[in-house]
């Protein structure tokens, strides 16, 4: 398949050799990164700047009897020590979370997870700040921790949230979608086959290579607070700051500089961010705080932690009829997930995936545990990662029980092209797709039949000789839902998920576009310039993209959930089209004709039937700022603004195939091949899109085989450093084999769908399905992630373990 552009027109090339519109273009932002001139949070240096460090709890659950800060205060380089007691006088000891709960900024009554923030030290350099932490004495009284989410609601479980009046248990919510009765009716039919399984998507952490941090500078004269924050959502953060701290919003400037990877880790507001603001106010100096890696892994937005009981019903021939789950969601000590208010379990109820079913029912029970708060992060599209893993494992388990081929059972049940727009049994309206084509593209590219034949030979050899590796082939087919809102359905803290955009063409025909979203490596400075170029025929190098500074950009909810292209990309197209229409009026005035007499060719309005009579967009820009007489009601200049409120999500999808070789002696897994076909509609910059897919595929290998944040019975975090929390390197990753199908979204102005999280959502089940397939000779039906050598080896012995606990 080849890439197409939405309009289907030829793409002219600019003087610099770049496409005027869609196509491969080298990134504009690379120039600074290649020279070490990126400007990341920790690169911010201000005169007189002080450094903060956080004292954290060594215990998972303990009462605080007293905190003695006197020795720390006496340190010659320490300028302030802030405790919860100090914050309480400012009404800042607690802050609202993005899910309607409250979270301790600095603990006052007790600590509720290991690593929780207890005190904030401000010193003249970063080493002195760390030294002073050692001088603080905290008297803790240990309380029994709640570590196992599945036992958090037991009658004898300690109550974690004693701060909430009337709390007698650790229950947060029960949430349901679908039709339980209709589902039960299907499961009760005498002729159906039912497969059941308990699946854990363990706690994982996005761990971007740059940790989180903030610099705050309060100007006491002007009353203006400037905050540099590692933020994927600078405008949302500014509004939250105004609401939390009671500061006037017009006096807050949030700057999100270059971000060293986000993946959802940089969406929430963390206690450290609040502490630097207070510290700057208290000391009268700018204050920087950057967390270390253990702080990042142990305390900031983790992902998943879903304990999913699943049941799937099908005919004996493998036609899937119904799917249901009851899931226990571990939210940690505070309910601080970031997702649309209406959907407390995120988009998990999209769990019927890519299949046409008769009935579905989903129930999620969320609980508090003595662990760090979070749950929605890590390129998860608001928990579609969990949903896709669930359905793709359940389908494979059904195929296992029915002794059917995993490709055959998927092909038999996929939603068909003529069923779009397709409304699922839990209420999602999928916009467009040709699923069988995409699955077939992957099967053909991988040589599926030949792979199965090779596997049969290898298995026969292994059974004969007991030597060699075990080959496994795993498939997944995922449907994503990205680009939240619409705003009347989706909000965070009441802020509707619609995004603004402003475009101005300068008199000489150069442009500046201002975005509400913020790149963390996605290449917005290039892609958004290409969108303007596509719509206006300007060279993309003539378009400056401004983002990441609330004083310079219009309001919007930011970059997460793969929403930049579906929402802000649409906004950029709309403002460009508005500028184009305004340019038409100006050109008509200059050519002394009616606007209706003009036709658009890329970069130029010209008289229909007389192409030599026309004006380029650059000429029109100058005319718009000139003394040219314009029609009544038409203001001069050439600019436009828009707020894009998406009518629906966009639904990218894909078919992935993974081939692994398992060493039966060690349990070690080697990923031999990974074939990925993605359909995200037209690709504005195919190079950038493919790069994002590569990254997501690597994350899938990490989650499936390596990464887990587990806990021991005392609530100690066992994934608190890169010695224990293992990330995939170049050695664990194969050369990705990527393929493309193109099905435009009918409701996006450019036909584009989001893609940033597709591969992270789709790849883990492909890897897990491959490993379980490899272990078929040992009778393995399921084992939870991560499938590290120990877990694989135990699965081969028939006793896979719960990977989230260091005890059973």
């Amino acid at each position, binding site marked *: 398949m080849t890439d197409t552009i939405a309009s289907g027109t030829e793409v002219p090339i600019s003087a610099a050799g770049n496409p005027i519109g869609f196509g491969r273009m080298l990134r504009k932002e690379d120039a600074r990164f290649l020279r070490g001139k990126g400007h990341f949070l920790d690169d911010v240096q201000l005169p007189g700047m002080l450094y903060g460090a956080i004292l954290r709890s060594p215990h998972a659950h303990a009462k605080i009897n007293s905190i003695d800060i006197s020795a720390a205060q006496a340190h010659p380089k320490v300028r302030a020590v802030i405790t919860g007691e100090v914050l309480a006088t400012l009404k800042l000891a607690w802050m609202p979370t993005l899910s309607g709960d409250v979270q301790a900024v600095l603990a006052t009554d007790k600590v509720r997870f290991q690593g929780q923030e207890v005190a904030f030290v401000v010193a003249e350099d970063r*080493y002195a700040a760390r030294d002073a932490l050692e001088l603080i004495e905290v008297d803790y009284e240990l309380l029994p921790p709640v570590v196992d989410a599945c036992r958090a609601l037991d009658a004898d479980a300690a109550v974690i949230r004693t701060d909430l009046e009337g709390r007698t248990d650790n229950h947060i919510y029960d949430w349901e979608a679908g039709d339980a009765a209709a589902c039960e009716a299907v499961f009760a039919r005498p002729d159906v086959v039912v497969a059941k399984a308990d699946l854990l998507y363990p706690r994982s952490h996005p761990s971007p290579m740059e940790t989180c941090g903030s610099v705050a500078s309060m100007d006491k004269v002007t009353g203006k607070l400037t905050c540099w924050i590692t933020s994927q959502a600078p405008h949302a953060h500014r509004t939250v700051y105004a609401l939390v701290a009671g500061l006037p919003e017009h006096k807050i400037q949030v700057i999100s500089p270059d971000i060293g990877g986000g993946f959802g880790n940089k969406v929430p507001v963390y206690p450290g961010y609040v502490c630097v603001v207070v510290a700057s106010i208290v000391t009268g100096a700018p204050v920087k705080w950057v967390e270390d890696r253990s702080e990042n892994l142990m305390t900031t937005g983790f992902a998943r932690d879903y304990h999913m009981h699943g049941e799937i019903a099908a005919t004996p021939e493998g036609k899937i009829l119904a799917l249901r789950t009851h899931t226990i969601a571990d939210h940690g000590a505070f309910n601080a997930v970031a997702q649309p208010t209406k959907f407390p379990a995120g988009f998990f109820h999209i769990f019927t995936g890519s299949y046409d079913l008769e009935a579905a029912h989903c129930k999620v029970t969320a609980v508090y545990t003595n662990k760090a708060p979070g749950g929605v992060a890590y390129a998860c599209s608001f928990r579609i990662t969990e949903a896709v893993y669930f359905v793709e494992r359940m389908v494979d388990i059904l195929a296992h029980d029915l002794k059917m081929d995993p490709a055959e059972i998927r092909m038999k049940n996929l939603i068909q092209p003529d069923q779009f727009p397709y409304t699922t049994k839990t209420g999602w309206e999928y916009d467009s797709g040709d699923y069988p084509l995409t699955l077939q593209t992957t099967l053909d590219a991988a040589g599926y039949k030949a792979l199965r034949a090779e596997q049969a030979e290898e298995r026969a050899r292994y059974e004969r000789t007991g030597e060699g590796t075990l080959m496994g082939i795993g498939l997944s087919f995922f449907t994503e839902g990205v680009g939240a809102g619409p705003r009347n359905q989706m909000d965070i803290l009441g802020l509707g998920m619609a995004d603004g955009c402003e475009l101005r063409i300068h008199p000489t025909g150069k442009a500046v576009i201002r975005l509400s979203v913020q790149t963390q490596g996605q290449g917005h400075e290039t892609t958004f310039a290409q969108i303007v170029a596509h719509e206006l025929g300007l060279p993309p190098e003539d378009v400056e993209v401004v983002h990441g500074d609330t004083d310079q950009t219009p309001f919007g909810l930011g970059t997460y959930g793969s929403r930049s292209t579906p929402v802000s990309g649409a906004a950029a197209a709309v403002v460009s089209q508005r500028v184009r229409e305004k340019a038409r009026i100006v050109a008509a005035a200059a050519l002394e004709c009616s606007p209706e007499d003009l036709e658009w060719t890329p970069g130029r309005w010209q008289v229909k039937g007389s192409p030599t009579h026309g004006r380029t967009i650059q000429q029109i820009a100058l005319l718009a700022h000139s003394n040219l007489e314009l029609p009544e009601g038409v203001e001069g200049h050439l600019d436009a603004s828009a707020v894009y409120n998406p009518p629906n999500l966009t639904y990218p999808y894909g078919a992935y195939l993974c081939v692994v070789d398992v060493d039966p002696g060690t349990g070690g897994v080697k990923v031999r091949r990974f074939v990925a076909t993605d359909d995200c509609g037209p690709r504005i910059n195919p190079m950038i899109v493919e790069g994002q897919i590569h990254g997501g595929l690597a994350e899938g290998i990490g989650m499936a085989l390596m990464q887990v944040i587990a806990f021991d019975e005392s609530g100690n975090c066992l994934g608190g450093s890169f010695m224990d929390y293992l990330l995939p390197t170049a050695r664990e990753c194969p050369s990705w084999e990527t393929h493309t199908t193109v099905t435009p979204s009918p409701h996006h102005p450019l036909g584009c769908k989001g893609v940033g999280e597709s591969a992270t959502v789709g790849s883990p089940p492909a890897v897990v399905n491959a490993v379980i397939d490899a272990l078929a000779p040992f009778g393995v039906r399921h084992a939870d992630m991560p499938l590290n050598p120990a877990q694989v080896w135990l699965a081969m012995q028939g006793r896979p373990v719960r990977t989230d606990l260091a005890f059973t």
Partner: protein
Amino acid sequence: MQVTMTINGTEISREVEPRLLLVHFLRDHLGLTGTHWGCDTSNCGMCVVTMDGVLVKSCTVLTAMAGGREIGTVEGMERDGVLDPVQEGFMQEHGLQCGFCTPAMMLTARALLDATPDPTVGEIREAICGTTCRCTGYENIVRAVQWAAEHPAREEVTA
């Protein structure tokens, strides 16, 4: 204590605390912020620089240990306005996204190509596995190093 070293060809002398890590000396004292920091345990490889031509993780080197040595950082890769072929390769093959691991990856690639001008894919993957990247899935980094191997001469700047 007084420490003197050569950084990207220029001799530098400073008074520092004996415990100061080289990564913080480069970043906080000299403003050479192209060298990044990413973990506490010498695992992530964000802070890779060269010391007397050998790759080191500057979070695990005391500034004092660098006394009298020659340190190379990303800021020294471009010479007379011309990019190193490795830098050019990373741009041509989209070997970077957020840009945070890029300096370390590029210095690693340069050291590899100096020792092995025509490396295999396996050798490239082995060489760069001390630095973690969360964005690229490594494929385009491998291609970037291959591009540099195929274009060993410095070319005119295109970025």
